[in-house]
């Protein structure tokens, strides 16, 4: 009897747990769902602030009118620009950060501690401080209104990612390096043949995070890109709210929804790796 009661009680706890977590989860994603459903609603229905997630009339037109973009520049262009910038900066950050992480995690040399400390402290420098002079430098070099200011800096590593990859590298046994060196590898080939492939989970985490940072980046494109033909998706979305025409909320939500698809798809594919790649042991010192 008591056993039975314990089982029912346990079941009840599980049900309560699921109900509670699911409801709260629903509230969490409601704004996103509302946006997606808004992409199929009429302007009037959106502005009325209706709670319902099912559109009264299904307006697929929102996607075509939205996609058409502004004055002949369609969202095809904006998506292409975002893809170019995000991919290049993702490749850049992933490669360069793993190089630097190898140096800091595996090599023992004079100045390493200083460099490492500097790197950690760069994480704490507010972007605003260097934003203005960086802009002026790129400006003087004539790189404003090109993708260069948005991509090239990624090739110099990101402190956050260097740290993240280092934490992961610590978990790779040093014996592997030593064995490889006995087999005739040098310290360069050890990195490329042994370490780099083993870093996969950390590299994937880095790539995911950097890709969506770059994809969502708003201030960078806002400052550096002037021609609509070079706009990224996030800049283009703002045009909906800004250009002097009736704000077409339906079209805006349709394009907003589309803009989230790449990030979302990537997340679904790599969800598992995201947690795997984060190793907190280092934080604990």
């Amino acid at each position: 009897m008591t056993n039975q009661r314990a089982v029912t009680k346990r079941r009840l706890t599980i049900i309560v747990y699921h109900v509670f977590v699911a409801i709260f989860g629903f509230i969490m994603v409601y704004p996103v769902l509302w946006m997606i459903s808004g992409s199929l609603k009429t302007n009037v229905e959106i502005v009325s602030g209706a709670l319902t997630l099912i559109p009264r009339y299904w307006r697929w037109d929102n996607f075509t009118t939205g996609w058409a973009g502004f004055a002949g520049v369609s969202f095809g262009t904006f998506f292409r620009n975002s893809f170019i910038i995000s991919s290049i900066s993702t490749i850049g950050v992933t490669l360069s950060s793993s190089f630097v992480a190898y140096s800091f995690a595996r090599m023992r040399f004079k100045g390493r501690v200083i460099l490492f400390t500097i790197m950690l402290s760069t994480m704490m420098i507010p972007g605003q401080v260097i934003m203005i002079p960086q802009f002026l430098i790129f400006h003087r070099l004539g790189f404003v209104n090109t993708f260069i200011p948005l991509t090239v800096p990624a090739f110099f590593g990101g402190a956050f990612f260097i740290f993240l990859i280092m934490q992961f590298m610590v978990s790779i046994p040093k014996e592997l390096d030593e064995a490889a060196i006995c087999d005739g590898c040098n310290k360069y080939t050890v990195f490329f043949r042994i370490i780099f492939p083993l870093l996969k989970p950390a590299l994937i985490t880095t790539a995911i995070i950097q890709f969506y940072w770059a994809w969502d980046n708003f201030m960078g494109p806002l400052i550096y890109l002037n021609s609509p033909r070079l706009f990224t998706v996030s800049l283009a979305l703002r045009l909906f709210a800004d250009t002097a025409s009736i704000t077409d909320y339906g079209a805006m939500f349709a394009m907003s929804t589309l803009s989230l698809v790449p990030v979302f798809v990537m997340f679904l594919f790599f969800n598992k790796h995201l947690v795997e790649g984060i190793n907190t042991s280092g934080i604990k010192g």
Partner: protein
Amino acid sequence: MKADKTTDKKVQEGAERRARFSRFMNKDAVVGYIFALPFIIGFLGLMLIPMFMSLYYSFTNLTLGRIGHSWVGFANYVRMFNDARFWNSMGVTFRFVFLSVPVRMVFGLLVAYVLTRKYKGVHGYRATYYLPTLIGGSIAVALVWGQLFQRGGVVYNILEMAGIGGVHWFGSPVLALVPLILMNVWQFGAAMIIFAAGIKDIPETYIEAAAIDGANKFQIFFKVILPCLTPIILYNLVMQTIAAFMTFTQAFIITGGGPAEGTNFIALYIYNHAFSWRNMGYASAMSWILLIIVASVTGVILKTSKRWTFYTNE
């Protein structure tokens, strides 16, 4: 014969030189610096030099679009001292940071803890809770958020249905901060994931030992899990605080800093001075003060952290 010998010697010399070269190249220091090169160049070119430039410009009247600039001494800093808009921005930013960061951390920690249960579907839940963070930085979400909280928007209607009466969020400089804070809290996913990873790393034996000693779940959470997580809490606290000080996009898109500058975050105010009004010199000065403030706040957190963080190993 003679010629052969010299070539032999040359070959030998060459091989030796190569060997010496390769030994040199394989020194830890050389490998280390070569691999760290991207960071070193990036740090100098994209951080250090710009920072010095910025410091210099903060003492000039550099104006974008106007040719030439001149040294104005501390004029920009004096102006800042008397600039009511600057102080207001600082106030707004501090309010935002102190209200949003702790709430966000508490949510991240609680949800991470709740989702460590080994029930079915926990993975799915975690993904769901992470979703807002994944897309939250997007301009798309900011546009939607403004719409949700606008008069007659979804949140307004819900409150009205609940009998509280519609709240006109963007009609008051105090209330307008609330939707922005909520949006920040909503994105607790990054903190959650790091906490989750941290909880996963806590040795089972600790918890079992506490359970054997008769501790209940709350006691286990507060006496075992929380102390073990303090280093991660510290890390999250520092990073989230710095990020919150930099908040820009939400205010830029949703409120434009208004009403009555109630959401005019310092990042937005600096942006406007630099890029809308072209006062690069003044904006540089403000960004330096911001740097000093953020550094001090971080410093205070790190200083006091020694009293409340516990390191398990060693």
